[in-house]
């Protein structure tokens, strides 16, 4: 029992990431604004559909049309149509403090209990004449009131992703787990070459086996996520998909190489050597190439904001890191079961031979 603590740790962390990752709600957000295209100098009734809000009559709700950090208009009135739908009235002045004739501006909502949330570039406004100094003179400065804070911070609301943001805890740890398992197998391969104990090679192969399983699961879960957010199961234009497919091909080749060599010692030697070279290639494929491209849909690659920047806020971290540790340790447990079964098989083969 005592030496099994890490298995319980893995189970606890995975369970925690599944339960908390599924149950903790998203922050409120703005789903839809109607109309989305308006003209300066007119008054508009806009309906705003929101997500995860429970507006009740009597709530103090403020809404702003944000032009930039200094200038904004507060809506004339806010009417609650439903717990997740508002009607707000904006009087748009004729002149906007903006040098662009047409631009998209953000909408901010701030409400009791619910907190403050924003939809960037929600409405596009056309102004007929551009008079920025006149506009600045006419507009009140710092027109934003105190924004209300939510009672509790939850997972961030992200357009396009919405609830599927939670896949961060299930899709990404597959790749982290794969990477750590490959590192483990590298260590085992090097140890094999150092002291020629074929058991080390068996360990390395088992870890690669689970790493490949994680890689396939990463591809499959990524395909589902991509279908729902990017609109396609698989795209060869996305560098991360290409490099992960190449890494999987590399380790398929590794297993084929093992199958092709009958002599146990030679197999261990050759496959250890290939897995060391393959690991170097995998590092370049998975970690260097994706950073070299101009554009990528994945965060942290090719000009996208870094993973760990605004893509991973503190509420996500509290579930994401446990998930990574949990799935990694679970992977090592699975690998351990695999090579222990192989040891048993080898033991009996030798005994009955």
């Amino acid at each position, binding site marked *: 029992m005592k030496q099994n603590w890490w298995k319980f740790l893995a189970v606890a962390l995975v369970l925690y990431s599944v339960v908390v990752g599924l149950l903790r709600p998203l922050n409120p957000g703005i789903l839809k604004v109607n109309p989305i295209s308006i003209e300066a100098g007119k008054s508009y009734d806009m309906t705003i559909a929101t997500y995860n809000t429970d507006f009740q009559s009597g709530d103090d709700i403020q809404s702003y049309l944000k032009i930039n950090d200094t200038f904004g208009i507060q809506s004339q009135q806010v009417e609650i149509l439903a717990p*997740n*739908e508002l009607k707000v009235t904006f009087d748009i002045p004729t002149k906007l403090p903006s040098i662009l004739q047409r631009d998209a501006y953000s909408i901010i909502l701030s409400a009791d209990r619910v907190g403050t949330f924003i939809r960037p570039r929600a409405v596009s406004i056309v102004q007929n004449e551009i008079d920025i100094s006149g506009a600045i003179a006419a507009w009140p400065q710092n027109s934003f009131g105190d924004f209300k804070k939510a009672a509790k911070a939850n997972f961030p609301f992200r357009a396009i992703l919405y*609830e599927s943001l939670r896949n961060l805890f299930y*899709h990404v740890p597959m790749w982290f787990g794969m990477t750590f398992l490959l590192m483990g197998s590298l260590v085992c391969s090097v140890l094999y070459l150092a002291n020629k104990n074929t058991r080390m090679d068996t360990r390395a192969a088992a870890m690669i086996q689970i790493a490949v399983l994680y890689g396939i699961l990463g591809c499959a879960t990524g395909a589902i996520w991509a279908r729902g957010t990017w609109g396609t199961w698989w795209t060869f234009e996305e560098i991360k998909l290409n490099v992960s497919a190449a890494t999987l091909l590399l380790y398929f080749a590794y297993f084929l190489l093992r199958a092709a060599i009958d002599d146990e010692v030679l197999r261990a030697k050759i496959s250890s050597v290939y897995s060391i070279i393959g690991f170097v290639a995998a590092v370049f494929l998975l970690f260097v190439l994706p950073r070299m491209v101009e554009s990528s849909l994945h965060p942290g690659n090719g000009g996208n904001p870094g993973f760990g920047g605004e893509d991973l806020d503190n509420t996500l971290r509290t579930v994401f890191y446990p998930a990574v540790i949990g799935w990694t340790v679970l992977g090592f447990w699975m690998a351990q079961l695999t090579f222990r*079964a192989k040891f048993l098989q080898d033991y009996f083969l030798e005994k009955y031979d």
Partner: protein
Amino acid sequence: MKLNVCTLFLLVFLSSNQLVAADTIDKALHSSGKIYLVVGTLVVIFIGIIIYLFTIDKKLTNIENQIKDNE
């Protein structure tokens, strides 16, 4: 009898349609929530672990047969 079943289906269909019409916003929210992607992901991972269980099961069966054959 057949007609009755058809009527029943039609009724259910119509009433569900009405329900949907009454609850359009909730439905839109549900589909835009994309929670089904998370469910799909978890199902795939579960299937992966089950596949792993079957492979280890097969390995252990092999070992058991080996022992049985030799005793």
